[in-house]
């Protein structure tokens, strides 16, 4: 099914200070948020049917004044809109916990592994970083004690996703039952300092394959992109946004900016241009299909991948992690076909994207069975 991620982006400047942040935190223009304008935009988008869930994002939402955080929760609840929040947990208080429980806020935490792997997160001062890491562990425990479920976004770098540290990462995921999304770090346009930590496509592929084995041993972990890419091959939709032919100028993500304007996916903020274009287009993917991605076996389930990862930082080009996407899909295809030699996969169907994904049709799915029925029986 086609989906749009909807972000309520309160600020760019973030007090956490992670080393590889792709937001230009020196951008002084984005400092204050106007909640009235932001909700006005939200309401106009609801009328167009573009929202059913919102994610509070940007600048660590738990660092907002608590009265603003409460007001935002109340306003979304009043509109029957489900809320998610992405946070480092660095500013978690008991009041936040009460609000998270009261409004059933879906929490996503930003963590790259146990403290020794999580080194690029948090303040750059070593002493402050030590405190940050300890707080993070205790705050994860607080969430668990309060029976608050959470997911995570982990950024894969050379530090946590190669060599022995990759073993440690996999152990941590299995032991802590991390329901995570594992994205490759990419260096933003304005800052090349972290380029030495960017994974090569081969390294990224290997990391994803290792995480696949963790997922295989732990069927209850909805780990991304492992599960998503398996589902993509099985024709059960197309996720995540990076493989759905995002057009960069309009993106698969609506971001309500602090001034009430509508912006693109926050990955695009790296180039310094925040607002979205007025119209969307599939031109990038259409052109890639006939040029750089011509004849690719996994075109239907990749689409050139995230434009924010474009080769030479040029979003018109395919992802610089192309070989990782190709290699991982290739690995998964062999695994699936090894178990199910007669299965028909999405890549066996010409124009799967147009004929199935855009028409919200699923391939290996019993069409007379609803999703909830299926889950009950499972």
């Amino acid at each position, binding site marked *: 099914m086609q989906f749009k991620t909807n972000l309520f982006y309160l600020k760019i400047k973030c007090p956490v200070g992670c080393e590889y942040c792709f937001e230009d935190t020196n951008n002084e223009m984005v400092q204050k948020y106007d909640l009235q304008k932001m909700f006005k935009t939200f309401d106009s988008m609801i009328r167009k049917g573009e929202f059913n869930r919102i994610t509070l994002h940007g600048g660590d939402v738990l660092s907002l004044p608590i009265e603003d955080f409460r007001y935002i929760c109340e306003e979304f609840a009043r509109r029957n809109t489900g809320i998610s929040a992405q946070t480092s947990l660095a500013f978690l208080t008991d009041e936040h916990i009460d609000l998270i429980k009261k409004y059933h806020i879906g929490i996503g935490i930003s963590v790259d592994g146990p403290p020794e792997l999580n080194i690029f997160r948090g303040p750059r001062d070593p002493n402050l970083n030590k405190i940050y890491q300890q707080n993070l562990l205790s705050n994860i425990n607080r969430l668990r004690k309060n029976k608050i479920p959470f997911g995570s976004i982990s950024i894969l770098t050379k530090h946590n996703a190669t060599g022995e540290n990759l073993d440690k990462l996999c152990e941590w995921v299995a032991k802590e039952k991390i329901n995570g999304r594992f994205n490759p770090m990419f260096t933003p346009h304005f800052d090349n300092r972290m380029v030495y930590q960017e994974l090569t496509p081969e390294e990224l592929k290997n990391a994803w394959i290792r995480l696949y084995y963790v997922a295989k041993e732990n069927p209850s972990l909805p780990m991304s992109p492992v599960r998503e890419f398996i589902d993509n091959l099985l024709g059960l939709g197309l996720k995540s946004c990076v493989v759905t032919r995002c057009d960069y100028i309009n993106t698969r993500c609506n971001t309500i900016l602090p*001034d009430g*304007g509508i912006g693109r996916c926050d990955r695009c903020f790296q*180039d*310094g*241009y925040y607002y979205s*274009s007025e*119209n969307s287009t599939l031109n990038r993917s259409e*052109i890639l*299909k006939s040029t750089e991605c011509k004849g690719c076996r996994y075109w239907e389930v990749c689409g050139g991948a995230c434009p924010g990862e474009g080769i030479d930082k040029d979003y018109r080009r395919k992802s610089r992690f192309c070989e990782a996407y190709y290699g991982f899909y290739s690995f998964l295809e062999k695994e699936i076909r090894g178990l199910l030699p007669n299965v028909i996969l999405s890549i066996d169907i010409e124009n799967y994207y147009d004929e199935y994904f855009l028409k919200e049709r699923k391939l290996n799915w019993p069409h007379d069975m609803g999703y909830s029925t299926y889950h009950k029986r499972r």
Partner: protein
Amino acid sequence: MAVIPCAEMMPIYGRIDLQQKRGARSKLLDETSYETVKRDLRPAAITAIPNRVYDLYMSRLAEDGMFFYPFYKVKMTNGFMHNEVPAKLDDPSSFTSGCITKEIEVAKELKRLYGIYRNKDSSKKTTKDADKKIGELLGYPDCCCEFYSHLENYDPVYESALGGDHSFFNSELYCLNSDPALFQHLRYFGINITPWFPCSYSCKESRRRSEVWFNVMKSLNLQLAEEILNLLKKPSTWDLYNGQVLITHEDFLGYVTSYFPKVRKVVHFNQGDIK
């Protein structure tokens, strides 16, 4: 390949007005084009009139001592386009393309030349001659008409830059000693003063005529005209790769569909000599 012609702009934070004023800028450029004929600064102008305002436009032309001579109907498309798509006669959302002028002979000649220009069976030489004559009737400088008639592609931003002072760094062209009033690489967003491709961005005759055009523009909307010129004066880069132009301007990012050159073409404006 199903590439849809488009021209989109994404402003920096706090400059959403650039997107909102796009219509106003385009209208000012249309009005300037109209006024230059009305004030006898050139013989004719090409325009496309939406069907819904056709009657109103005809009345206005008559009151100003001009008339509209229709050539053909084109479809309404979203944004800037390099190839006009023909429309059916009864398509209510189409435009009628043609010229505005005071002289019937000029109108007839322009229609004849456009017929040659649009006819795929015309020889290269005939098309080039027609192209050149069209430019002259539209009041563009002779040197620029000659330059344009020899071009092979439909978006000669790069070729105009090659025609003047420039330097290369990493195969990217830096445009030097240029006059922003002649720039055409932001025209997709209604940010230009003159409508023709100059033989170089420092062409003397184009400069002279651009002053006349800018004065007309200022007489219609001083503030917006100066805003357009200020946008043209800021550093920007035009980057064409695989049929897509990326325009990186201090105040916005632009995305436009274009033609497919064999190699990537990049032009830097108002950025001095990188060497």
